[in-house]
């Protein structure tokens, strides 16, 4: 019992890492895992949170990076929409 739980959680952990490589947010990850791997979002969310606790620095940096990307993405979109408008 415990083994299967452990391995399941390990699997979810693995999948979350994959999602991080794709730059996903926690929510996106939950959605993806539910969709592609049939993992309940609550499980994904829990494992994500636990991972975050264990790897605080990483996740801090990760979220910062994502934020920057979002900002840049926005800027690019504004830029392109501006140029198309003008």
């Amino acid at each position, binding site marked *: 019992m415990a083994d299967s739980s452990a391995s399941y959680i390990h699997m979810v952990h693995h*999948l979350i890492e994959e999602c991080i490589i794709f*730059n996903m947010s926690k929510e996106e990850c939950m959605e993806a895992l539910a969709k592609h791997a049939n993992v*309940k979002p609550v*499980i994904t969310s829990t494992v994500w949170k636990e*991972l975050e606790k264990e790897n605080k620095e990483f996740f801090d940096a990760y979220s910062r990076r994502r934020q920057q990307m979002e900002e840049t993405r926005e800027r690019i979109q504004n830029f392109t929409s501006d140029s198309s408008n003008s």
Partner: protein
Amino acid sequence: MLAVSSLRSTTFSSKDENQEQMESFRPVGNQDFSELADKNLLESIDFDNLFVDINAGDVLPDLEMDPEILAEFSVSPNCDQPELNTSVSNGKVEDNPRKEEEEKISSGSSWSGLDSSLSTRGEDQVVSKRDESSWVMNPVPHKGDKGRKSSTQTKHNQGKKKVDWTPELHGRFVQAVELLGVDKAVPSRILELMGIDCLTRHNIASHLQKYRSHRKHLLAREAEAVGWSQRRQMYGTAAATVGGDMLPWQVPTIGFPPVTLMQHPFRPLHVWGHPSMDQSPIHIWPKHLTPSPSPPPPQSHSWAPLPRNPSYWHQHHRVPSGLTPGTPCLPQSLPATRFATPPVPVIPSHATYKVDPADIGAPTSGQSGHHHPTFDFHPSKESIDAAIGDALSKPWQPLPLKLKAPSLDSVLVELQRRGVTKIPPTAC
């Protein structure tokens, strides 16, 4: 013996004067001439060694012609001194000019930068050429405008002969070219801009041709380097270990090409022949990237390989090697180590697989409208699916990011708190 000396004279110069001087050198050198006579003379004569000895200064006292030639040098540095040709002086103007030579060379820092890394390459040519340039610089010891004057003198000396493209001379050439625009730079105009007598349009034209092809070379390298750095970033992430180290988390930044890559493209272009070039940081020359420190790897990545520089560039400026900051890159130290062995060996094969879908995913995803070669803000569904499927089917694969796993207990407790009791869930 005669054969030897005649060989030497043909190699260096056809002047009688040279021949005489060569012969006078003979006793001094450490070569075993009898040996040479037996073999293929041309091949077995190591001219560099000859001159190395001479340079050491042992020879000097033996040369009777020194003072005469020195006098000639200092007296009249003008165009019509054809007899003061290159190799002749090799032995002589050593002590004094040596220092000046070094100073001048260091002032032409970019050149020296170019050369130092290629220490193995044109060494032969370098030694003899260095002597030439030392000779060349001699006439103008310490004028205020060192670089300028000496190079002017140099040109005067050489007249219509083969032009010795010293760092100063080359720097002026590049300035002129840049002013005109590389593509629009016409030899006659360059000549005008440089304002140097004794340089023919022909000299400039051929030098321009070399310069252009060299730049293309650099650009191609740069493009290659860019590709490399991207790949390396991806690998770097996969191979990362958990230790609070920032290094591993580079993959996500790949989605940010403008930020990460923007930095280097310009450097290499400036490297070539620009005296003002800052050597240490980025040189796209021979070596590959050293494993980059945590800050943006691309920064260091710009040391693209300057790999096989046409040796002729080095001939002239090899000397500086001892003086230039010995960064491995560009000629310097760094790079080429630019792409030091990417942690490829460390990467689990599964990570490699992962990279590919990301690559594939990028072009197909049109969401962001952002053209990035390898990564996208919104990875495609297929790539995600593929990655997830892979992870599911191969649970034994090592984790790509190797984040510290949470304790099982805390996870279970948390799950229970949220109402999840069965794991894996039997029903969705």
